[in-house]
């Protein structure tokens, strides 16, 4: 039987090379004798975490995180189809790009979160604080992931927080993106509950929230 750590190493190398065919072969080739959930939890999630940390430390490029995330998302959809009961969709979760139209960060996080077996709503980009607050209330969102690239957009998280607080909604806001990376104090300033430096941080933060509220 193939050792899961060997699969991980080969899978990580294939992902960093952005080799979709090889990544698929390594993972799906083992899906007949390893449980799909075990492949996701034991291979895809840790490898994506490793790649995300590599980006934060400067050894991996964003293009590798993005393209790797897309490959993983496709693989997870093969292993666990979107309607699968094993998907973790009990948590009402959504993602959006506040104010601006830079969607790459959102797509990276969206793919990574889905590749970890979670389902989440995509509220799109260029959305203003008023509209986002309405969507969050309407859909009963518990965890909201917000991606920003521009500082003025990041500062608008404060408006969103105030609107949600005024409506009495207890929404867990997780922020990410360049302004928060360059200024770790910013997430506190705008009233976010947590900040992720990369997509794999988002997974940890979602899990922490789940554990604290289970």
């Amino acid at each position, binding site marked *: 039987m193939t050792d899961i750590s060997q699969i991980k190493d080969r899978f990580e190398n294939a992902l960093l090379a*952005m080799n979709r065919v090889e990544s698929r072969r390594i993972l799906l080739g083992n899906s007949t004798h390893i449980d799909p959930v075990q492949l996701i939890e034991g291979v895809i999630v840790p490898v994506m975490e490793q790649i995300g940390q590599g*980006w934060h430390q*400067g050894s*991996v*490029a*964003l*293009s*590798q995180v*993005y*393209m790797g995330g897309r490959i993983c998302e496709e693989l997870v959809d093969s292993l666990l189809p979107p309607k699968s009961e094993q998907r973790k969709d009990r948590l009402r979760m959504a993602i959006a790009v506040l*104010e*601006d*139209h*830079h*969607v*790459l960060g959102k*797509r990276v996080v969206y793919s990574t979160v889905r590749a970890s077996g979670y389902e989440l709503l995509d509220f799109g980009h*260029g959305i203003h604080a008023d509209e986002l607050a309405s969507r969050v209330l309407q859909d009963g969102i518990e965890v909201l992931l917000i991606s920003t690239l*521009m*500082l*003025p*957009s990041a*500062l608008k998280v404060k408006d969103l927080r105030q609107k949600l607080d005024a409506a009495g909604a207890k929404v867990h806001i997780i922020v990410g993106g*360049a*302004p928060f*990376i*360059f*200024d770790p*104090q*910013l997430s506190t300033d705008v009233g976010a509950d947590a900040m992720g430096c990369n997509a794999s941080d988002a997974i940890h933060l979602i899990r922490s929230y789940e554990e604290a509220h289970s």
Partner: protein
Amino acid sequence: MKPAAMTSLQRVLTSLGHQEPDRVPLFLLLTMHGARELGISIQEYFSKAENVVEGQMRMRAKFGQDCIYTFFYAPLEVEAWGAEVLYVEDGPPNSAQPFLRTESQIIRLEAPCIQDTVCLHKVLSAIQMLKARVTDQAPIIGVVMSPFSLPVMQMGFDKYLELIYEKPDLFWHLMQVNQEFCVAWANAQLAAGATAICYFDPVSSTTILPREKYLETGFKVARETIARIQGPTATHLASGRALPLLDDLAQTGTAIVGVSALEDLGQLKAVAGDKLTLLGNLNGIEMRHWTQEQAAAIVKESIRKAGRGGGFILADNHGEIPWQVSEETLLAISEAVRTYGNYPLDWIEDER
């Protein structure tokens, strides 16, 4: 003996020659703050060349920076290609939806004519007026988006990465169209009076692409493009990491590289040697809550790490200081350069 006071242009040129001028040059890369100086909105400010000329002159008089910066806003170039620009009250104008959505649009793409495009013409007018006012006292820094990084605004970052990796023929076609525009736009600014061109190229950073892919793509584009720009260039990675690329960047023919606050200036200086001048790396996002004491301490530390021997211009790390940074902080930075940046930097040894 203390060197005689120099003009800003002399100071910058001396540092570029990896010699020590009278003090460390300071580039406060201010754009929107000019609107605050004039008491008008950011949108109104950028609507007329005369506003930007007046704003730049007032800011240089107030903060004493060693350059004039004729960068209006990042989406100016895609505006020239017909895209929409979104204005906000408290930040830089932003690009709206990408305008290249299909492969056939890329195939049919034609670059705009510079002289016939109102937004570009406005920038050229500003450069001409500024040149008449500053003469050779200070360098005028014009700006282009690199052909390699412009597609982020033309087609969206995600779609562009997919193009780079999955459709190389189409990618190179887009590079050809963008390159012709970039060269013409850079040379028009130089002809109008710009001293040098800042070549913004964040996609080339190892934050975005692995070095191997950069060497196949952005490096080749930069080397060809910069060779055709008829003046000196500074490559700016807009907060992206540069350390693993310094030797490659030097080979593109650029003289200066804008470096990130995520990297250590001392390490960057050691690798850059006399091949490149470093521009950076004050953290513009954090700058909005610096105290005057913090500003002074950070400027001092930057000079300690990179000031020796010239080859260093103090600036922010992104190429644009956020609107939220206060005048008091900018003045504190300016004052700190004049306190700690006077050559020779004997205080570094004295403090050891």
